[in-house]
């Protein structure tokens, strides 16, 4: 029982990290039709600079941790906004080129990060409490999981509020459905493009800092490995659906933990799940139906 509970919480924690990456991917694809392969770079830079910040401030202090989250968030947002503005925007409506440029940016970014921080993982620490565990019904649950789940929950709530309550949120929801009709109402949808990139980058930056605490290290390759699962989560949840990304993140995270613990085939099971979803519900769990001409 305690093992089951521990696996469940660990899985939800992993799902929380996936969500922070997948939410941005899903919104960006939904609105712009761009699969953003550079999303992992946003996360990695957030994690690396977040860790540098925490180290300067004192890695075991709560202030250092909080500041590292804030800095990670800002760094991710800034890099994402810059990416959209400098690389994506000039290739407006040229989706294949847009995807290729994100692939290129990702490769270049990883090489740059390796040049600066080296290829080896750097083991990190946070506030002492986060390194300890809490006993829940016999399960010794690492405390950092609570923080990760809490923050991902707050990010989800913030995104939902933004999408539901603000004009730009409304433009993004409408644009995910039908981008050209948004422009035909006299709205410059490209501003929303920069916005979803910025929001997605901010979430990925926070995800980077939290992921580094989840895995216990930072590395230039942190983003790449998470990005693959985030893509899978995005497809399973339904491209363009925030709720879908949230549900699929937790589903994939939990499934992966259980399959890993009992049969050591976590990654395999996730790919099988992806195949099953694609075969039975090609538009994902909560994706809109593929538009017909």
């Amino acid at each position, binding site marked *: 029982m305690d093992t089951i509970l521990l696996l469940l919480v660990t899985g939800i924690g992993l799902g929380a990290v996936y969500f922070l990456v997948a939410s941005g991917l899903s919104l960006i694809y939904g609105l712009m039709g761009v699969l953003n392969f550079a999303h992992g770079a946003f996360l990695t830079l957030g994690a690396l600079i977040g860790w540098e910040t925490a180290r300067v401030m004192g890695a075991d202090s709560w202030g250092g941790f909080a500041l590292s989250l804030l800095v990670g968030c800002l760094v991710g947002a800034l890099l994402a906004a810059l990416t959209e503005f400098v690389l994506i925007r000039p290739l407006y409506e040229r989706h294949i080129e847009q995807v290729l440029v994100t692939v290129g940016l990702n490769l270049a970014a990883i090489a740059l990060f390796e040049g600066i921080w080296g290829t080896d993982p750097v083991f990190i620490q946070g506030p002492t409490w986060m390194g300890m565990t809490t006993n829940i019904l016999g399960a010794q649950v690492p405390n950092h999981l609570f923080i990760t789940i809490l923050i991902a929950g707050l990010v989800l709530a913030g995104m939902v509020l933004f999408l539901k309550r603000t004009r730009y949120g409304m433009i993004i929801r409408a644009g995910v459905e039908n981008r050209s009709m948004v*422009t*035909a109402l*006299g709205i*410059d949808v490209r501003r929303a493009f920069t916005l979803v990139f910025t929001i997605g980058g901010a979430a990925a930056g926070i995800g980077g800092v939290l992921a580094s605490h989840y895995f216990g290290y930072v590395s230039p390759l942190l983003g790449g490995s998470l990005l693959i699962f985030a893509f899978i989560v995005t497809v399973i949840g339904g491209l363009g659906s925030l709720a879908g990304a949230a549900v699929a993140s937790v589903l994939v995270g939990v499934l992966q933990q259980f399959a890993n613990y009992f049969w050591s085939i976590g990654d395999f099971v996730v790919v099988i799940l992806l195949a099953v979803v694609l075969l039975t519900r090609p538009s994902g769990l909560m994706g809109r139906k593929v538009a017909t001409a």
Partner: protein
Amino acid sequence: MSTTVQRTPAPVPAGGTHPAPVLSVRNLKASIGGQQVVEDVTFSVPATGITALLGRNGVGKTSTIKAILGLIHRDAGTVELQGQPIQALPTHRIVQRGVGYVPEDREVFAGLSVAENLRLSERDDHPRRELVESLFPDLVKRAQQAAGSLSGGQQQMVSLARALMNENRVLLVDEPTKGLAPKIVGEVADALEEAAKTVPILLVEQNLAVVRQLAAGAIVLSDGHVVHTTDSATSFLEDDTLVTRHLGVGTGPAHEGA
């Protein structure tokens, strides 16, 4: 000085030019994915009333509208809105200058509420909410309902309401009665007639009874070209030879319905 060689003007019959038209389209060519769908179209839309854009299925009526709005790629030609060229502007700028659009198939945002669909269309601080609410009282009742859950007729009301929310210089309305029940067709036609009192409309419409009720002039497309223009849509529709040749249909009782 040598005389300039006069280019042969496009064969536009009388009635094709209007004093101070709201919209002038000259030699417009447009393509979708490299395939030319509008081949050299020239016409103008008078500054009052409803002008019908007619033609068989697939002659490029919808493409012409989309090309005017920049929703498809314009290869050549000019489009002037009250004398100002707009052919190089992106879609949202064209719309901001006062071109309202009611697309074929309505294109409401299904996941957004009716109220959100309308709010999204408000371009400035003076949305004409009262006008829209008086024209479509049904939409007020359904403000919080998801637009995707409405009937086709109600969705058309949302689509029309979005275009009427702002003060426009011209409306481009594409097949507003397509797929609607006869009773609803009448309501849509009445709403357009009401709207036309304040804004000129270029109307693509297959239902000839509706055209007869609403349209003053008509522009007829065939094979991507304008083949006929008239100041009197009614007289055009009464000429069986012309109608059969250009629209491929008779004007018998079957088309008098609705």
